[in-house]
């Protein structure tokens, strides 16, 4: 009997399962639900109103997103006759899973026992995985066979062209500084409050904007810009499918935030991972999640302040301003390594 | 410039084309009656004289006389003096053969307004590149709703 229980606990604790499903899917989903509520409340606050409220007046409408989720899940899922059914259903789901996949390459602790995979190439692996999911958003738009979805998909495609290098290179500034792809080593290099956001703020800035660009955050919410392309690639999706899609962009941003936290914000510091599951794995990941959530809140705040850029302006900004900045940040990282500041 | 001077000026611009000039109440609206055939020439001259846009194109249906009266109400943006006045360039066309020429090549402003007259009265403006109903859906435009013989009823004030 006890053997069974132990085995089950062991399987649940098993890093691949735990990290992908719990830390990659469930916990970020919880954070995303909170963030969506927070975003609506923040926007409401800046806009001088109260936002969701009556659904649960005691906690300021905190259950709003739950209500939305329930409504979405039990609403009719319309699969129009005009779409390519297989691609229409599977593409967004693949995109969702791919967008959380990078989480397996992110260390939430420095005890090798709790790594889902060896961490030698984790940074570059995470970045490689991050680039995969938008592809399937394009496919989802294409499969929808809808004018707005196709245009939205094409916008997404051109945005990929503009942000991918920025997102990759500005994270790699950390590699330039430390000479390793190993995220654990990168976190270790940030001991003693030598967070990379302080040492290389430029890289953090470009990474931050790159994340905004790649997750359609304001002011770069272009692929879903509702005043021309309605809901972008997801125009035809209804019911739970749309809920999933809506969450996917935020999930992706959450994963990016985790990565930003690990690379620039000192990872699990000031906590030092200890022994066992709780102190070795759970506690540091909570620290990382808290930092990432704060980042997410900052991302959300921009919705209240900015409008959106035009597509060509966004691409132009990416290539004319952000890309040079990113290269400079990378060079800065190299120089810092050269002069031994790290 | 007062209204008499304006009338004189308009008469001078249009010279022999003018059939009749009426000054309406308020002394800021004059209506110049011309011949149907002269409208393009008249419009050209008026535009040259500074009446640079059509304020509106009014069509009035007079079933008793059997005519549609088409009034191009012209005014000016660029000329401060003229802009006080509206000059209506009016002509009649027979009701049973509602056809006339477009002013679109002279006044771009006429584009939509002539389409509107087309759908509401069934007047065809020859030479207009895009003579389709503007506001109404085709079946409703078929009814030519603004003609006087299309009757809309008011409800009586008593409840049965």
């Amino acid at each position, binding site marked *: 009997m006890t053997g069974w229980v132990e085995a089950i606990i062991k399987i649940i604790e098993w890093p691949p399962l735990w990290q992908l499903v719990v830390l990659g899917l469930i916990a970020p989903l919880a954070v995303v639900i909170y963030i969506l509520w927070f975003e*609506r409340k923040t926007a*409401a606050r800046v*806009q*001088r*109103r*109260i*936002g*969701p*409220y*009556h*659904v649960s007046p005691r906690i300021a*409408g905190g*259950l*709003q997103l*739950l*209500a*939305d*989720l*329930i*409504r*979405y899940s*039990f*609403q*009719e*899922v*319309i699969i129009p006759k005009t779409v390519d059914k297989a691609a229409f259903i599977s593409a967004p789901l693949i995109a969702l899973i791919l967008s959380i996949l990078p989480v397996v390459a992110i260390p939430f602790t420095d005890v090798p026992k709790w790594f889902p995979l060896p961490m030698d190439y984790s940074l570059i692996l995470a970045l490689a995985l991050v680039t995969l999911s938008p592809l399937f958003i394009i496919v989802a738009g294409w499969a929808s066979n809808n004018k707005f979805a196709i245009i939205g998909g094409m916008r997404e495609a051109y945005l990929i062209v503009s942000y991918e290098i920025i997102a990759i290179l500005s994270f790699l500034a950390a590699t330039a500084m430390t000479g390793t792809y190993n995220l654990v080593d990168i976190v270790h290099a940030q001991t003693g409050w030598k967070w990379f956001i302080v040492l290389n703020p430029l890289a953090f800035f470009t990474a931050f904007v790159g994340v905004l660009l790649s997750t359609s955050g304001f002011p770069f919410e272009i692929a879903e810009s*509702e005043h021309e392309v*309605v*809901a972008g690639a997801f*125009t*035809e*999706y*209804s*019911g739970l499918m*749309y809920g999933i899609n809506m969450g996917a962009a935020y999930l992706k941003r959450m994963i990016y935030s985790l990565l930003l936290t690990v690379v620039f914000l000192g990872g699990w510091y000031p906590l030092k991972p200890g022994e066992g599951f709780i102190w070795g794995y759970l506690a540091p990941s909570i620290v990382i999640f808290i930092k990432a959530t704060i980042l997410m809140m900052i991302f959300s705040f921009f919705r209240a302040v900015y409008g959106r850029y035009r597509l060509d302006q966004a691409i132009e900004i990416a290539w004319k301003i952000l890309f040079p900045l990113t290269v400079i940040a990378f060079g800065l990282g190299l120089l810092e390594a050269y002069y031994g500041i790290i | 410039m007062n209204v008499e001077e304006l009338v004189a000026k308009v008469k001078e611009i249009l010279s022999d084309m003018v059939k009749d000039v009426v000054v309406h109440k308020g002394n800021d609206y004059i209506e110049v009656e011309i011949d149907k055939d002269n409208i393009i020439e008249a419009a050209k001259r008026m535009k040259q004289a500074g009446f640079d846009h059509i304020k509106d194109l009014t069509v009035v249906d007079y079933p008793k006389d059997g005519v549609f009266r088409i009034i191009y109400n012209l005014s000016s943006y660029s000329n401060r003096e003229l802009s006080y006045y509206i000059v209506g360039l009016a002509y009649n066309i027979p009701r049973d053969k509602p056809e006339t020429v477009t002013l679109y090549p002279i006044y771009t402003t006429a584009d939509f307004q002539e389409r509107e007259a087309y759908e509401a009265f069934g007047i065809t403006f020859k030479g207009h590149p895009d003579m389709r109903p503007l506001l*109404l*859906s*085709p*079946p*409703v435009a078929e*009814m030519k*709703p603004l003609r006087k013989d*299309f009757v*809309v*009823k*008011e*409800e009586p004030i008593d409840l049965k």
Partner: protein
Amino acid sequence: MEGNGGKGEGKVYVGNLDVAAKSARKILMSSLRLGKLVDWGTAFSLWPVHLTTSCCGCEFAAAWSPRFDNEQHGALPWIAPRQTNLIIIEGTVSKKMACAVRLVWEQMPQPKFAIAMGACALDGGIFYNSYNIVRPWEIIPVDVYIPGCPPRPESVARAIVELQRKIKRDGVAHKFVEEGWRPDKEYVKPKEDVCAWWRG
């Protein structure tokens, strides 16, 4: 979990998926008592689709302005019909617009609700004898009517509150999931084909 259940049952009744789905609906809604939850979720997540048919749109917009802020009821005006479940007919529906209204209504996923706002949407209002308008209730089934021209933003809020109460009271949403239609509303098919005139 649900996925496995669905698949399992699908296997049992090979070739009779409809029966399986029906029993799954019953089980979910009644035996598992999800019904209440679904009604609650639907009531507090009434997203009106962005369809401004006429000038009542001004007050519709004002109803979501900071002073009245209907988002507090969980209603968020949304862009495309596929993701919404409420349509607010904002005033007059002209013959040209009728087609759009009907299309939007049809393309919204069930369970869906309709509110008619303004005198025009009720009985024509000041345009009662116009030749170019239709009464919205001729083309879609309406749940709540708001009189006024335009109605005050509070009236819109009141309509949403009333609709929420109705959903929770009558269990409209979960009955829909359970049975596939709404028992409380006769489903209208427009008398004439409102899109017949369309030029393709």
